[in-house]
């Protein structure tokens, strides 16, 4: 049976779950280019979108996909793409255009191991900093990291809600292991899923980029006589280019602040056995599942270990880490790269953490993380 929200209990992969979450959030436009390990997202969307009144386009490349997302979003559709490292690299310029023009959309990046073509079919977590800083210039980003198919569904909904609310491209930073993992996914009835839609401007006299008190301007519709002008150049509230340092300061400061002032609403993490912990592991995505097991193994050995799992990676929960460093003496970071979140953690706790990194290709074994915990408390 064709349904809008796939309510009930299902056995789904992370890739399929993220697609279903998007549809439940109201996504009605997908543009993408196939790439392992994200192609299943596109395949699912190509089947599902027409059923729910949406449009699916396989574009000629990821540059085009990202541009089409922005166009469709201004056309009033909640829009999404899905990709992996090489495609994510190609999307970066228009990711920045989305930031500058405040265009809601969602980019799913099912991370594989890089650099370059790397390991197309195997896991990596090396795009964390790219999601943060991959496009040129100063800006703030939002990125979420699911650890299970269930969270892929939930976080797709949340990603759309953030993108609509704050008018910003949001990244769902999955990884190959989570994308290809099959697990039970429980989808609540449509009426129980909170869906946020962008604020729509109704006043034709109002300037397109005149923000409300929350620093977010309502978005005017196209084709209704608003006569909007939207540019990636630095612009004033009318949307017109102004090539001065003052205009840049005013605009970009607001783009940064609109996320910073709402950071507490966006930031989300799971604390696992942290209350009395002496050593805390920081992990996200598939690495968090190994870390959770490692924490239990450490407890069995009498080490007071705990885990802080980042559900939202950007904005980074610096405040939380500064709180934890008051209680715990040791920190371990487990991620599948050569130290990306590690830098943020060490910045926040103002001391070194033990790093359990892998270059990619396989998730951590719990005993690898355990070794890091043991080294930390030694």
């Amino acid at each position: 049976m064709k349904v809008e929200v796939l309510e009930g209990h299902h056995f789904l992969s992370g890739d399929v779950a993220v697609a279903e979450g998007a549809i439940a959030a109201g996504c009605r436009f997908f543009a993408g280019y196939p790439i392992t390990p994200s192609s299943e997202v596109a395949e699912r969307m190509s089947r599902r979108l027409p059923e729910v009144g949406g449009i699916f386009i396989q574009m000629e490349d990821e540059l085009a996909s990202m541009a089409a997302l922005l166009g469709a979003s201004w056309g009033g559709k909640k829009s999404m793409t899905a990709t992996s490292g090489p495609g994510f690299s190609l999307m970066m310029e228009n990711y920045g255009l989305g930031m500058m023009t405040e265009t809601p959309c969602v980019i799913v990046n099912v991370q594989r191991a890089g650099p370059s073509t790397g390991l197309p079919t195997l896991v990596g977590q090396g795009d964390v900093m790219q999601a943060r800083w991959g496009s040129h210039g100063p800006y703030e980003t939002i990125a979420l990291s699911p650890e299970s198919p269930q969270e892929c569904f939930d976080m797709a909904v949340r990603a759309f809600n953030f993108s609509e609310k704050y008018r910003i491209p949001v990244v769902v930073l999955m990884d190959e292991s989570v994308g290809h993992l099959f697990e039970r996914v429980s989808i609540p009835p449509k009426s129980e899923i909170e869906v946020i839609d962008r604020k729509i401007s109704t006043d034709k006299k109002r300037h397109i980029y005149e923000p409300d008190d929350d620093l977010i301007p309502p978005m005017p519709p196209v084709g209704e006589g608003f006569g909007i002008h939207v540019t990636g150049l630095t612009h004033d509230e009318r949307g017109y280019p102004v090539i001065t340092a003052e205009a840049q300061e005013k605009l970009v400061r607001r783009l940064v602040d609109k996320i910073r002032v709402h950071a507490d609403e966006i930031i989300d993490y799971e604390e696992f056995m942290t209350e009395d912990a002496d050593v805390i592991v920081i992990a996200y995505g598939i690495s968090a599942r190994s870390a959770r097991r490692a924490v239990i193994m450490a407890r069995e050995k009498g080490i007071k270990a705990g885990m802080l799992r980042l559900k939202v990676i950007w904005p980074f929960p610096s405040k939380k880490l500064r709180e934890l460093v008051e209680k715990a003496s040791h920190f371990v970071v487990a991620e599948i790269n050569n130290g990306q979140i590690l830098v943020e953690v060490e910045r926040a706790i103002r001391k070194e953490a033990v790093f359990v990194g892998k270059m990619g290709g396989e998730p951590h074994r719990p005993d690898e993380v355990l070794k890091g915990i043991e080294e930390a408390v030694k």
Partner: protein
Amino acid sequence: MSVVQANMHPLDNYLRTERLPHVWCSGCGIGTVLGAYLRAMKNIGMDPEKTIMVSGIGCTGRAAGYVKMDSFHTTHGRPIPFAVGIKAARPDLNVTVFSGDGDLFAIGGNHIIHAARRNADITVITINNFIYGMTGGQLAPTTPETGITTTSPYGNVESPFNLAGLVAVSGASYVARWTSLHVRRLEKSIEKALKKRGFSFVEVLSPCPTAYGRRNRMRDPVDMLKYFQEHAVVKHHINPLEGVIEPDKDFIVGEFLDAEEEPTFEDKLWEMTKKEFLYTSQAERTAWILEHRRHLETLSKIISGRGER
């Protein structure tokens, strides 16, 4: 005779007059072509409120900033996929891409052939000034052989693209080439392009005295127009391959292609969606139909074979 208000230009209703003067050099052809575009819109009664202009980056790309309609100034090379996205989302609106030769055929070259192949219902106007104007006169994929540019100081060793020919063989529905000297015929062609359902393309050879003419023995803007006058040969429906432009030789302008209208990319997308989509409740279905009323009206016209904008 219609009465024109004093101090008012006949195209003022189509321009963001508060943004004038524009950035273009004196003697530049872009303004002439934008004027022809806006007059064509006016002649056929195309509603600016239902029209979107998308530009890339370059001197030509600045056009989007001056027109009084919803307009988007995107990234270098990407106005076409942006336009494809917006048109797919809102097939009831008219979408025009107005951008430079470098933007649409170098960095964005892949997109134009694919949009033409899909027969996306957008109109693309490109200013072929043989150069990268905005960045100060570097080699473009349209620079004639022997052309001197800031990055080919000893002459160009590459062959230029035949833009109209390339688009004509890529699956477009309407293709024409004129120069900024052929204003009337250009205007008529743009009218046809705007009315055409499916991918339509108009290439306009246009002087850039500042970045091209100056280095290529056409320092005075009039020199380039003279070159157009002396060498442009009007011919229609040629073999697109005959459209090459060679230094100091005659070249062809005219209508390259005016194909039978076929269902557009958006017609097919929405037809598929209409066929497949199914909501559980009648209320939701009604809501969907109301929301997409305009698209569906367009769609039913197409299905009955009388598609009109």
